[in-house]
Structure formats: structure tokens, C-alpha cells
């Protein structure tokens, strides 16, 4: 019988621990246990056999670490996995009965990018190799286990699913009930079920009693069977021996409670023995398994947390989108990732629950841009994303790379589009936004939009996508073009909500297209839409009017306990005076800045004190411009003298790095205001020089380089920042292509100094007219000379001084 079918009918038992027993049999520290499949096959077979006699239905092969990262020799890898299966099969034959052999896949021991250095696709390929061999060996199912990073689990599950076999996933939670990379049980269930795993659960790290909270979480959200394979408690050392405290009897008692919570595939991990499994089986088999049922939670997730739909309206930030945004288009064309990420982080800060990501422009490579944006955004922001593209290739790339379960924007009632998008949604998982458009366009009545929604649900089901994973967008159209369109959309929302019990989403701001002061209309419409059942809004979280609607709506409908969120929000609405960014103390003028005109003094002081909001935004720089001062006057008369004063203080040791940086940020905020002013008047800003900055190959510490960049930009230099761990070739090519005269390199570790030397050597060979400046924790003037750098700079300020000197000559 199919293993899942069997799990649906009743309890199913895994075997228990292996490592502990092998260590007792003589496995040395650091020795790879998979080698025992051939060297001590009798030990492995005996262990399997004992578990089967104890009543285990499923054996895990001894292949936890059998991957090409640990066994690069493919011949060896294959023979170890083959050995593992023949040991398990022999044991099954001896024991008789219906037994299953699961190809066991453990984590790779490396963190995936961006946290670590293993690329997602490389991880996938490594898992794929193990899976392929396991399939050749006749595995009955695949168990991906002990995963403590949901991203790595995703790579493994994708590879496993392609085998067509049943795939079980168990992850290792820590004492706080989360994976080491942050996901909670709800998040894991969202991702796992999205990827189509057949059973999901927990193993290792904790004993059964410490797992109760996680098991509750899994059973609350999982529609598939839940697996629980605990350790026999937490190990401790006693006279050099490892001891596990939970006896078979205690283990069995706890597992009975766990079965009562709804888990139905049960077994053990480290420290458990055949006796644990036998006792557990006896205890559990006397009870009736809790029935399996479909859980109606609609979840999406990032790598740390899930967002649930159907309660409060979910806010989806719309700002990462070039439509109608000149500045954003420019950023896309220039590949200005800082700007794009900045848009994301700002929306996160303003209270978005999800970020929409649309980076399509006809003249750019959308597939590459989408992949890059999703990856980089996820490195700095933990909100779930909504992948927004009409390009199926970009969609697939993004869904594959995405760390979590995303929203997919969008599908509609056209057969062709559904045939494109639904298979992707089925493979990778996601909550699909479905627009009520079909081959005939957008219907003019709510009833017809409802019909399309109904059709989409049906088609989705045929592709194996559940109704809870579809969210209908009945489309907001401008009331300036068609006076009744507001009514039609609102009625559609209500019908979908009430008649179909469906979730809904809207691009709210479309309603006001063509009208003045659009925010006013948007905000009113937003409240009305929520009243008619709207589940999610694609909107601008920086819009005060929209946020007012949202906060008030929740408070008025009793969805804001003690009105706490409303009160916190109201605090930010009051016309509070500009707050000081640093230190609350009232400071006297520092007197350190010499200014030519008295009216420039407040700005210079604000920069010296690092008051970003006061210097930039609607603050002092703008006031001065509005007073009629020339941009150049403000820059040369206030900003540069202030920066110099702070720079001198830093060099003398009276001011310190954070202050230097805060001043730099304040000045940058003022520069931004001036830049916008210049742009609107058609003038450009003078650039003093252009540099390439990079942290060399092999080095991932880039904080020092980033500090240098901030200061250089402040002083009017254009910086092409190549990031960290940069190949020498890329540095040289960029410098040549851009006609750069000065390249700055940083290295933090002694081991990466050779990479710096190699970069300089290559630069000398291919582009001798370019100079180099180097710095970083391990650099010294002597080292710099040795590797033939033109200049060593001890810190960021020193680099600025050198640049001033260099570009003057």
C-alpha cells in the first residue's frame, strides 16, 4: 500500500536513532557513518532489523550525510547509498511484513546564500544527485530530515519531489520553537505544503516533552499528516559518556500525548533505541488517531514568519514598481539596487505586511532583474513578497529562488494565462492573485466578475490548487472614466466574500486615476472596500491618508486590542517638532564650524550633530533653497565646512566613527534635497571624481568599504560599488569599461590579502593607468607596499583626503 495511504488510515511508525548506537559500536569522532554501510554492513543491518522487530514500519537508510559535498567521488557516493539500501532491504526481508525504506537526506552542513556561500541551485543539484541514486536503489519514499533552514529544505524538497516518490519533511526546531534561521511551525507548514510535501514534522534537537509547543503548531496548521521523531531528551556528558535521560517508558508516555494532539507518523531520533520504539508503539496503538482534516488557513510566508489572510486586511506595499515612476525606472535601467531595496525597507518601516515586486521594463532583462531583486530584498527584509510579473520565465525564476511561500501576481480568467501560471503555483507553492478578466475583457457587472472568479476556482482545482490558495482581485477602475465603477467593484467584493467565501485583493489606488488629490479618494474607497470584505490591499503604506483609514477601520471594528495600534499610530500623526536623532541633550552650538553666512549655521550645526531629519527632508536644506540661496552656496558654505569640521575632529580623535557617519548621513539627506531641486531646475550636480570600490574575492566583510563609500559620496565622488567577494576580473573590467582612474580595495582577513594582490597585479597588467588605494583591518602600509598598491589609507576619512589629493592632480 502507498505509504501516505497507510498514514491516512492510522498510525505509522518510524525507526529510532542510529548515531548513538554506531558510536557505541566504535564509530570515531569525525568519522563518516555512511562508510559503515560497506565497512560494517552487518552492524547496520542488525540495527535496522532490531527496529523492525520493535515494530517500525519505515526504515531510514543510513545516508544522512550521503551527498556529493561530503563524498565528491561519485562512485563512492553511489556505492555507499547502494550499500545502505541493501542493508535495509535485507533487514526487511528477514523481518517480513509490509515495511518501507525511506531514502534519508540530511542537511549539507553549509548555509545557503545570502547568509552563507552555498548557492540555492548548487544545493538543489547536490540533493538531486543523492535523490537520483536513491531512486535507482528503489527507495519507497524520501525523508528530508533535521533541516534547520527552510531555504535548504526547499532545495531538498524540490529535488525530492521530481522523483515522483512520496516526500516527507521534518525540521529541527530549537528550544524557542523556531528553526535556527528563524521560521516557526506555521511558516514551515506554509512552505512545505506549498511545495507539495506529503507529510511534515519535527525531529531531533529536543526530547518529546520539549516539543509539545511545536507539535501544537504543526497540528493546528498542517492538512497533511504530522511526523514527530524526537530525541530521547537532551544529551549530557557523564564521565566521558553521552547519556540521554528519557527512558523508553517515559518516551512512550510522552509520545502518547503527542499522538493525542494529532500527530500520526511517530518515531525517534538521537538517543532512542529499539526499546523506545517498541514501548511507544504499544502505548500509542491503544488509542484512536485524531482524524485528518483540511485546515482552512490561507498562509504566505517569508523565511521567518507567515502572514495569514482572512482576518485583518493585509497591506501589500506597491512601491517596488516602475509604472508611472520616473525615478524607479531610472534605478532599474542603472541597476541601482540600493534605491530599489530602499523602497522596500521604507515600506516595511511604514507597516507593510507584504511587498509587491514588479521590476518589468521593456528595455531590461526582467528575468535577471527579478531574480536579483528578490534575492537581495530577502537578504535585508523579512517580509513576504508578492511576485508581480507577466513574464512566465521571470515568474518561475523568482518562485524558485524565493525563500518562503510567496504571493503570485497574477493569473486571470484567460485559459492561456491559467495554463501558464497554475503549474508554477502547483510546483513552488504560493497564494495566487486572480484577476476577474477573461477573453472578453473586464465585465461591467459584479455578477459576471463573480462568474469569472468561480471559473478560476474550478480551473485551479483541476491543477491541484486549493481554493484557499487563490485570492480574487475584482479590479478597481477609475471613477473618473466610469462613474459606476466604484459600485461595481464594491459589489463584486461583497459577492465573492459572501457567495463564494473567497478572499479578495485590490489595487486600491486605481479607483482615483485622473482625479486631483487622489489620496483622499483612495482612502475613502479603502475603508468602503474593507467594509465589503476586502482581504488585502495593494497600496502605498507611506500614504498617511491610507494608513489613517486602515488604523481607524481596525479600531472601529474591534480588531485592535485596547486601540493600542491606533494610539501608537496617532502618536506619529501629531505635529511633533523635529526630533533630535542623537542624544536628547540640548546642545550648545559646537562652534567648530566656520560659516560665511549666519543663515547657513543651523544647517552646518545639524550636519555636525548628525541630525538627518533636520538637515534633509522638509528641514533646513529645503528652507534655505526656498529662501533663495543657491545650491552651490549651501554645499560650499554649510555642508562641506560641516563635514570638514567633523572629519578633522575624527582625525584628532575628538569625534568618533558613529558621529562621523551620522554627520555623513545628515549631509547626504541634505544633498538629496539639493539634488532634487537641481533636477527640477534642469541643472546637474558637479562630480569631483569617479571610483570603483570592492571587497576582494573571498572576503565577505564589507562594513568598512561601505563606510568609505558613504563618505566619498558625501564629498561629491561617484562610487561604483561592486560589493563583496568580487572577482579580480570584474574589478578590472569595470574600471576599464567605465574609464576609472582610482580603484579602492578592502580586505579584512589575512587569507584574502593574496586576492587583493592578484587584483592589483591584473590591474597593472591590463589597465596600468589606473591607481589603487587599499585598506581594511589587516592592511598596513608595509603590506600595501608589498602587494604594490599605490596607497594605503588607514580609515574612511583618510581615503577621502587621498581622493581629494588624487583627483586634484
Amino acid at each position: 500500500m502507498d505509504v501516505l495511504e497507510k498514514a491516512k488510515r492510522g498510525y505509522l511508525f518510524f525507526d529510532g536513532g542510529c548515531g548513538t548506537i554506531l558510536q557505541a559500536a566504535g564509530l570515531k569522532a569525525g568519522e563518516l557513518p555512511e562508510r559503515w554501510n560497506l565497512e560494517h554492513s552487518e552492524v547496520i543491518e542488525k540495527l535496522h532489523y532490531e527496529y523492525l522487530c520493535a515494530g517500525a514500519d519505515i526504515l531510514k537508510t543510513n545516508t544522512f550525510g550521503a551527498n556529493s559535498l561530503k563524498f565528491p567521488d561519485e562512485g563512492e557516493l553511489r556505492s555507499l547509498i547502494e550499500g545502505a539500501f541493501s542493508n535495509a532491504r535485507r533487514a526487511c526481508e528477514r523481518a517480513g511484513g509490509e515495511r518501507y525504506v525511506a531514502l534519508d537526506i540530511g542537511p549539507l552542513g553549509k548555509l545557503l546564500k545570502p547568509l552563507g556561500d552555498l548557492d540555492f541551485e548548487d544545493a538543489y543539484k547536490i540533493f538531486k544527485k543523492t535523490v537520483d541514486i536513491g531512486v535507482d536503489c528503489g527507495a519507497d519514499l524520501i525523508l528530508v530530515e533535521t533541516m534547520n533552514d527552510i531555504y535548504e529544505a526547499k532545495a531538498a524538497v524540490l529535488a525530492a519531489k521530481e522523483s515522483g516518490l512520496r516526500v516527507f519533511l521534518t525540521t529541527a526546531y530549537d528550544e524557542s520553537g523556531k528553526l535556527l534561521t528563524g521560521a516557526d511551525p506555521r511558516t514551515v507548514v506554509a512552505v512545505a505544503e506549498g511545495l507539495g510535501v506529503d507529510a511534515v514534522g519535527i525531529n531531533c534537537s529536543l526530547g518529546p516533552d520539549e516539543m509539545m509547543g511545536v507539535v501544537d503548531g504543526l497540528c493546528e496548521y498542517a492538512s497533511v499528516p504530522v511526523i514527530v521523531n524526537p530525541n530521547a531528551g537532551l544529551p549530557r556528558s557523564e564521565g566521558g559518556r553521552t547519556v540521554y535521560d528519557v527512558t523508553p517508558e517515559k518516551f512512550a508516555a510522552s509520545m502518547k500525548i503527542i499522538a493525542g494532539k494529532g500527530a500520526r507518523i511517530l518515531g525517534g531520533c538521537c538517543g532512542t533505541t529499539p526499546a523506545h520504539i517498541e514501548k511507544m508503539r504499544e502505548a500509542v496503538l491503544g488509542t484512536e488517531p485524531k482524524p485528518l482534516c483540511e485546515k482552512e488557513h490561507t498562509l504566505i510566508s517569508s523565511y521567518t514568519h507567515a502572514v495569514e489572510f482572512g482576518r485583518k486586511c493585509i497591506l501589500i506595499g506597491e512601491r517596488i514598481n516602475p509604472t508611472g515612476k520616473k525615478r524607479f525606472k531610472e534605478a532599474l535601467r542603472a541597476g541601482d539596487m540600493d534605491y530599489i531595496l530602499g523602497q522596500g525597507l521604507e515600506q516595511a518601516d511604514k507597516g507593510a505586511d507584504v511587498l509587491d515586486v514588479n521590476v518589468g521594463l521593456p528595455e531590461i532583462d526582467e528575468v535577471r532583474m527579478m531574480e536579483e531583486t528578490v534575492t537581495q530584498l530577502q537578504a535585508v527584509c523579512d517580509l513576504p513578497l508578492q511576485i508581480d510579473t507577466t513574464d512566465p520565465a521571470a515568474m518561475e525564476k523568482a518562485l524558485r529562488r524565493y525563500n518562503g511561500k510567496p504571493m503570485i501576481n497574477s493569473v486571470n480568467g484567460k485559459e492561456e494565462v491559467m495554463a501558464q501560471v497554475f503549474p508554477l503555483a502547483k510546483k513552488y507553492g504560493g497564494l495566487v492573485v486572480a484577476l476577474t478578466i477573461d477573453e472578453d475583457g473586464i465585465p461591467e457587472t459584479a455578477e459576471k466578475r463573480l462568474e469569472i472568479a468561480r471559473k478560476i476556482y474550478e480551473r485551479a482545482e483541476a491543477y491541484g490548487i486549493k481554493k484557499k490558495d487563490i485570492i480574487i482581485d475584482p479590479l478597481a477602475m477609475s471613477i473618473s472614466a466610469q462613474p459606476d465603477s466604484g459600485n461595481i467593484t464594491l459589489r463584486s467584493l461583497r459577492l465573492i466574500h459572501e457567495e463564494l467565501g473567497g478572499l479578495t485583493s485590490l489595487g486600491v489606488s486605481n479607483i482615483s486615476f485622473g482625479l486631483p488629490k487622489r489620496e483622499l479618494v483612495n482612502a475613502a474607497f479603502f475603508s468602503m472596500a474593507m467594509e465589503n470584505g476586502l482581504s488585502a490591499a495593494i497600496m502605498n503604506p507611506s500614504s498617511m491618508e491610507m494608513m489613517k483609514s486602515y488604523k481607524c477601520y481596525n479600531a472601529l471594528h474591534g480588531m485592535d486590542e485596547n486601540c493600542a495600534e491606533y494610539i501608537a499610530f496617532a502618536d506619529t500623526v501629531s505635529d511633533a517638532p523635529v526630533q533630535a536623532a542623537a542624544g536628547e541633550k540640548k546642545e550648545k552650538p559646537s562652534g567648530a564650524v566656520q560659516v560665511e553666512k549666519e543663515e547657513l549655521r543651523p544647517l552646518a550645526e545639524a550636519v555636525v550633530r548628525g541630525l538627518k531629519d533636520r538637515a534633509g527632508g522638509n528641514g533646513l536644506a529645503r528652507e534655505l533653497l526656498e529662501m533663495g540661496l543657491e545650491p552651490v552656496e549651501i554645499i560650499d558654505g554649510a555642508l562641506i565646512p560641516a563635514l570638514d569640521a567633523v572629519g578633522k575632529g575624527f582625525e584628532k580623535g575628538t569625534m568618533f566613527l558613529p558621529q562621523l557617519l551620522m554627520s555623513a548621513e545628515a549631509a547626504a539627506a541634505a544633498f538629496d534635497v539639493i539634488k532634487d531641486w537641481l533636477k527640477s531646475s534642469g541643472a546637474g550636480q558637479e562630480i569631483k571624481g569617479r571610483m570603483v570600490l570592492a571587497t576582494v574575492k573571498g572576503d565577505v566583510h564589507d562594513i568598512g568599504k561601505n563606510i568609505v563609500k558613504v563618505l566619498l559620496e558625501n564629498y561629491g565622488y561617484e562610487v561604483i560599488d561592486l560589493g563583496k567577494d568580487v572577482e579580480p576580473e570584474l574589478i578590472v573590467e569595470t574600471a576599464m569599461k567605465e574609464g576609472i582612474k582610482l580603484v579602492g580595495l578592502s580586505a579584512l582577513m589575512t587569507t584574502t590579502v593574496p586576492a587583493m594582490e592578484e587584483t592589483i597585479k591584473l590591474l597593472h597588467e591590463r589597465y596600468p593607468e589606473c591607481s589603487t588605494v587599499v585598506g581594511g583591518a589587516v592592511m598596513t602600509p608595509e603590506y600595501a607596499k608589498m602587494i604594490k598598491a599605490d596607497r594605503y589609507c588607514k580609515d574612511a576619512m583618510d581615503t577621502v583626503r587621498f581622493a581629494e589629493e588624487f583627483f586634484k592632480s
Partner: protein
Amino acid sequence: MDSRVFTYIADAEKLVISEAETARYLGYSREGIAAAGNETLILAAIEKTRRLTAGKGCYGRYEVSYPEEGTVLLPWGEVRSRDLYRNLFPCPEIYVFAATIGAAFDRELKRLAYVSMAEAALLQAAGASAVEAVCDALNEKLERMAEAEGKRLRRRFSPGYGDLSLENQKGVFSLLTPARFIGLSLMDSLVMSPEKSVTAIIGIEDGTV
């Protein structure tokens, strides 16, 4: 999983993240700390770091021998290092540990690099102090365990110190497999991820305290 490796979880509330150490990482002088605003900034960075810190370690206890002067036979092979030899000889056993403050800190640091480099620089320094604090706490636990057996510990010594090559990180990682216990992994460049992490070797000396 190797059941001879043990996990240690640090109590975030009790971690002593040093203000002076944090200031030192930022390049402050002693007087600098007291200057206006600096103390508040550093304390705020330390508190934020404490919230982001999930201090964890894993460790094992192993035999060690000395084939000749300047050479130590570690569980992962023979290593030539005068400095390590001096530090360990003639201890018959060692503890090997890996400790980290976790991935949440790295993520916040990455985010801040886009939002405010000033805050990033402050947090970076506090994070460096925090991982030292986790190491100190773990070290103390190991010390108590050794004392209970009437033994005492030498000072901890990390790959990369003195003439002990960073290559030894590979040995430490294959021995402890810290990815499984504390989510710590070693990149090909021998840099650890999460970034604020430490590995160390500690000699266990026979004899009374």
C-alpha cells in the same frame, strides 16, 4: 548526529556585553566614551544586539597528544603550531567549541547597511562584543565542569591566532558539525556564517586548582 557533541544555550539576559570592548571596536579612546552622546549610542547598540542575540555554542571533549615539540595531534590530524603547542602542552585532553550569536544579527546588520551606516557600525561593534560574551559564558561553564573533576582549563585559543593556521577551521567543523547544532557553517573562504561566531580549543590540564 554526533552525540558526543553538546549544545550550549546562553542566557541572553545574563550576557555581559562589554561597553568598553564595544567602544574599543569602534576605535574610541577612553575619554571618547564619556563624550556627549557616545555612551547612549553604545548602550543602545548593546541593547539592540542583546535582543538580536541567540547565543549558542556546541562543544566536545577530545584526547590530544604531542608527537614532537611544536606539533599537536588534534582529532582532525597533526598540526604544526608552536603557539598552540605552547598553549596546550602537556594537557592530555582538550575542549573544542564553536559559538555564535545567530543569524538574526547578520540580517539586521545587512538591513542597517542600507538604512544607516552609523547604526550599522555601532551594531557591528556591539555584535563583536556579544560573541565574546557568549564565549566567556560557555568558557565558564566548561571551567566549572573541569573543576568538578579537579582539573583546570588553559586559555582558549582560536584558529587564526598566532601561527595556528585558519585552515584548522575545516577540522573543527568536520569534528563538531556545528551547522546541525547551532546553525553555524564554514564557507569555502574559511569565513564563518553567521558572521559573529568564534571557534576555539581549550586545554584541559590535570592537577588541582
